[in-house]
Structure formats: C-alpha cells, structure tokens
C-alpha cells in the first residue's frame, strides 16, 4: 500500500481537480449574479454607484436657483400628479404636464442606462404614513438601493390638483403648511 504511489498520486490529483472546480464555481458565483434578483459581490460597487446616481438625479430634479420662487421640477411633478400609477412608461393625465416630463427624465437617466427603478411617494395622514407608487417597474432585487428626497408642500402648491388633494391630505388647515412627501426612489440593475 505504501509503495502504491500511483494511487496516492491519483487521489491527490482528484483532490486538486475538485478543489480547482469548487474554487472556480465559488469565484464565479460571488463575482457575478446568477439571476437578476440574486446578490453578488460585484453589487457592492454597483450599489454605491446606484446610490450616488439616485441622489444626484433627485438633487438635480429638486434644484431651484437661489432666490427663485419657481417650484423645482420634482415638486411640480408631484404637485401635478393625479395619484395614478404609471403603467410602464405610459403617460398619465394631464398629458404632457410636469409629471410626464419628469417621468420621461427618469426613463432617460435610468431606464435607458439599464437601471430599473420604482418611485413611490410617502406622506403623512391622520392614520400614519401612507404611500402610493408613482412609477412602478416591478419587485426590486435583493441588492436594490433606496434613495429619498423630502419635499414640503404648501397650500398653493396643491390648490389646483383636486385629484391629489383627495389622496395627500392637508394636515394643517390653519396655515399654508400642507404636508411633507418623501419621494422614495428604488434602484437596481437587471
């Protein structure tokens, strides 16, 4: 038995091959996602990238020049929204308004770059925090990132939009304070 060095050799060879295969499989599994919704180590960088992209996009859309009394594009989109979920990328009523323009900006900035996203609006009600999806593209993956932007609505922002007024309540009828909405953007890569 001791002298049968060939057997030993074959055994070690087999172990080496198995080890090699296992390492390759582990490496591949860790390095790349097996399904769109599964996690992988490569997502760490992607998550950071997506978070950064998400915050950048929300910041740009919520920008108003100093001293201007105009509403930011994001605020206009919310203030003009009728509360209906976008079906895919189809426009919502009123057509062509700030909501559709902003939805298209999300598509161009994210969708066209292969990033999937959901946009939900959270707001205060007498019963607690409620939410409503605005742009919905499906269930997020395990590695989806969430970024958000809070927007304060005042009475004059909401006066024209009777549809949305029935969804987002005025929580202070005595002053111009209307409500705060949190625009929550969920991002993931397919």
């Amino acid at each position: 038995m001791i002298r049968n060095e060939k057997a030993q050799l074959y055994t070690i060879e087999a172990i080496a091959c198995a080890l090699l295969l296992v390492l390759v499989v582990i490496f591949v599994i860790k390095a790349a996602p097996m399904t769109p919704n599964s996690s992988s180590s490569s997502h760490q960088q992607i998550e950071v990238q997506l978070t950064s992209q998400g915050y950048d996009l929300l910041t740009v859309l919520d920008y108003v020049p100093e001293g201007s009394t105009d509403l930011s594009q994001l605020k206009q989109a919310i203030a003009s929204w009728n509360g209906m979920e976008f079906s895919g990328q189809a426009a919502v009523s009123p057509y062509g308004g700030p909501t559709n323009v902003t939805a298209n900006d999300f598509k161009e900035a994210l969708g066209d770059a292969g990033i999937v996203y959901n946009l939900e609006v959270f707001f205060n009600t007498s019963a607690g925090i409620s939410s409503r999806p605005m742009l919905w593209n499906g269930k997020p993956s395990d590695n989806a990132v969430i970024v958000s932007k809070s927007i304060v609505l005042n009475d004059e922002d909401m006066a024209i939009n009777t549809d949305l007024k029935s969804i987002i309540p005025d929580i202070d009828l005595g002053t111009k304070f209307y409500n705060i909405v949190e625009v929550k953007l969920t991002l993931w890569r397919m």
Partner: protein
Amino acid sequence: MEDVIKNDKGQIMLLTVFLIIIEVVSFTAILNNMILTANIPITGLDDSKHQMREFRLMTESEMQKAAYYATTYVEDPENVTQVQNYFTNYVNSYNNSVMKLYAARGASVEIIFNNISFNKTTTNLTVNMYHVEWKNHTFNINSLIIPMDENQTQIMKVFGLVYKIVDDNGTSGLNSTRIPVWNILQNPVNSTVPDFYSTIYTDDNASSTATGAVMNRSYSGGPFLIDIDDIDETKRQMILAEAANKSIIIHKLASPFYYEKAVQMVVPPKVAVYPDPPPSEMSGYYKDSEVPYTALDDTDIENGALKLTPFDILTIPHEDMDHAPKEVITSIVSWVADGGVLHAQCAGTDTMDDAVEKWAGSAEPWYGFIGINRSENHTGKIQLRTMTYIKLVDKNTPFNSTLTYNMSPPASLAGIADPGAAYSPLAQSYNISGILGNHSAQSTTPAFSLRSNGSQVNPRANILGYAAYVDGTPVYLDADIHSDHRSDLQLMYIEAQYENGLVTYLAGHNQSGRIGGERLIFETFFAASMRLSPVTVVAAKNINITIKYNDGKVRYEDTFLINT
C-alpha cells in the same frame, strides 16, 4: 522519459507545488477582495449624510417660510400675537410631520428652539420678492375675478376698486383691511405668442350663496384676481357690495386656476399729480376711476413732498417742464432715482427729458430720463387722425425682429423693444389687434422718437408701443422738432428704468379720447410696486435652533441661526 513517468515522487512534488500555487492565487484573490471591499464607501453612512443634510436644509427653509407666511398671511401683520401664533402653528405642523416621516425611515429627528423674537420691523418689500417679478400662482375655486375686457362694463372704475381692496388706511369698511390683489399678465397682441386669452371656468354670479351661468370664458386685458384664501366671507361681501355700487362686474372661479405670470399688489401706491390744480383731463381720469390722488405744486415738490409722504407715482400730463424751476426737476430726478415711478404724457415727456438734461444732465450719460425727441404736428408731419394709433409691441411685431432703429450707430429694434409690451403690467389691453385708438385732439407731443445718437438713449429703454396707421403699419417719418433728415420710427409709449425708479412716457393729449388708452395711466400701479415700499410688519427674527438627528449609525446635532 521512461524514468520521468516512473518517478512518482517527482509527480507528487509537482502536484504539491501546483496546489501551493492555487492556494497562493486564492489567498491573493481573497485578500484583494477584502481590500477592495474595505475601500468601497459604506452605503449606509453615505445615506445618513444625505438624510442629515436634507433635514438641516429643509428645516432652515421651512423656518424662513414660516416667518414669511406669518408676516404675509395673517389678518393683521402688525399684531404680534397673530404672527406668533401663525408661526408656531406652521412650525409645529412641520415638526410633527418630519418626525413621523423620519421615524418611518428608522431615524429620529428633533427641533429645539433656543431663541426667537417677534418684533415690529420696517421691511422693504422689494420688487424681486413681492411685486412685479412674475410669480406662478394657483387661485382656488371661488376666488374672485374682475374681468378687464368685454366682460367688464366699467374698466376705469375697476382701478378704483382695486385700490380700495388693497388699501388699509381707512378706519372702517373695505379700505380698512388690506387684501392682496393679483394681476395676471397677458400678451396684449393677438399674434402667435400665446396668452392673449386665458380660458377660465367661471361663474358670473360671484356670490357665495348663489350660482349663475357657469362656463368656460375667455379673459383678456389682464384681469385682476383676489385669492379666496386671502378673504373671509365678510371681506368677500364688502368687495362685492363695493363692486355693485360701482356697477363693476365680478365673476368667481368655478374651478382652480393656475397662472405662471402673475403679479401681486399688497400695498396701494400713493399717487401724486403735477401741477396743482391738475388739468381737466387728468381730473377726468381720476374721476372716472375714483382713485385717490394728491395734486402737488412747485412749492410742495421743492419742499420734498415726493419723498416725505412718500409718493409712489407722479403723473405729469401735458405740462411743459421746460418752465419748471430747477428745484422741482432735481427733486423729481432724485425721487425717481430712489424708486419713484414717473408717468408723463404729451408735452410732459420730451420737455421732461430736456429739463432733466438741463438741470441734472450730469447724473447719467444719456439725455434726460430716456432720451427722446418730440415729433412735430404743427407742420402737419404727424396727422393725428391717421398716424397716432398706438400699436403695442410684442415679440412677433415684424419690425422688432428684423429692423434697426435709425441711430448712430444703427440699433437693433429687437434690443430696444425687448420684451416690448408682452406680459408687461404697463400695457395690458384686450384689443385683439394690439392697436389702441387714435384721438383727434391737437397734441403738443403727438409722438416722439429716440435720439439719433445711441449714446444719448437710456440703455434700459423698452418700447411698449409705436405710432401706427389704423392697419398697424409703423409710421416712419422725419418729424423731429430738430429735423435731422432721418426717417425715424415714431413712438407712442416707452418705459425705462432710471436707477431704482421707472419712467414711462405716453404720447398724445387726452387719453380718455383714445379707445383703450385711458387705462394706461393706471397701469403704473403694479409697476409702482417696484419702488422699495417700506411696510411695518411683525417679523420672526433671530431664530436660533438646535436640530438633532440619530439613525443608529450616525448621531448629529447642530445649533445655528436662521436669517429671515
């Protein structure tokens, strides 16, 4: 070869070396991965930083808004308790909302007030903040709309009503309570530029208890609106009663209305007329409108009445200012430079420029206030009946985009008629052609032209209307009193900023004889708000707060002072 194959020990050694290499490679890969991971920014902490920053900026902004709303929207902005209560209620609502919202994210936030004071203060309501800067605004259902076109039968009296609504100098009744009035600015020429009409869903019965004919109506001519959020039922009744007394038609909104180019008047302008007594035409304008005014003579102006009162608008009809004393002219120049609005008509236009140049010419490099030449009518050059229609200018006016003005060097009309009359509070009109009627009365200054030397023209001049034939064709003519053998575009209505103030010149004698022209005298009302009007209000000052943020990963606390 045979030896090598048979040398199993050698093979085992080779395999062992191979395994060691694999281990080294694997170890290096894992180590590399660890180093990479350690160097990637931690998403959670990055997110916390965004949340903290947002909370701080939002809180700062909301404190400023609370202070602004408290001063602007309370019944009596000089009442400390009202302002304080409003501010507190607003801030509490914000605080409760933001706490709940952040709690849902897993973070706790807190706002602590360290110091705040509510003091009476004199605030300058600046043009950029409150008045002639276009603001977008939504008018709620039941807001009142005062038509300024064919829907209105008493256009001139509307100005008196608007004045009374904004005024709070009375002791009782409508003019004892300050109600902001909005003017939606439209394009006064029905070209391809939009907004000549605004289609608004309205009810022609403005009462809160009854309904009349509810339909989409087209409004032009810059209607006035009173936001329902700014009035209660008592004030509404006062407005409607006053309107009924003056036979003024008021509608109410049957659905919310949003407009992007609106201006708000929150302080009624104080109007002065020179000289005293004013000419009959001037009395006529004010009699028609019932707008209060004060006539000033030389002594009043020399004694500083314009600044002491202070007045916001000075109207000078066809008065030859060449004969005015030096002190009168220099007082007017100084008052305009400080923010006054001067509206001169007929002979008051070019003679004012001459007098300003004579007595205060060194103040600015150009000629007088604007730099115009009077056009003569005595030689028959300007035929009143056929050549003195006012054609308001918008961006589609052909000469505006293609022609140059006959100056040295030639100036592009696009440069000196921009923005023209479009969306200007000085030139709201509902005449679909943009042409305001002529009049047959003899006029000392039936039209004027810019001085041919471009350096003598105020670079901030803006042509609002030019002299035209009845079909709108511009009148080009060498009609200067000092004939320079140049054919110039004849002008009728022009404005120019002069330091902090505004000067408007309107050619022609009695505007009440000109269809659509009489109201131009009162359209300086909103522009007069360009004057820095001091208003005493209670304002939240010295807001010192501490904010706290804690999401388990990051704890943040900061104390800071907010400027209002």
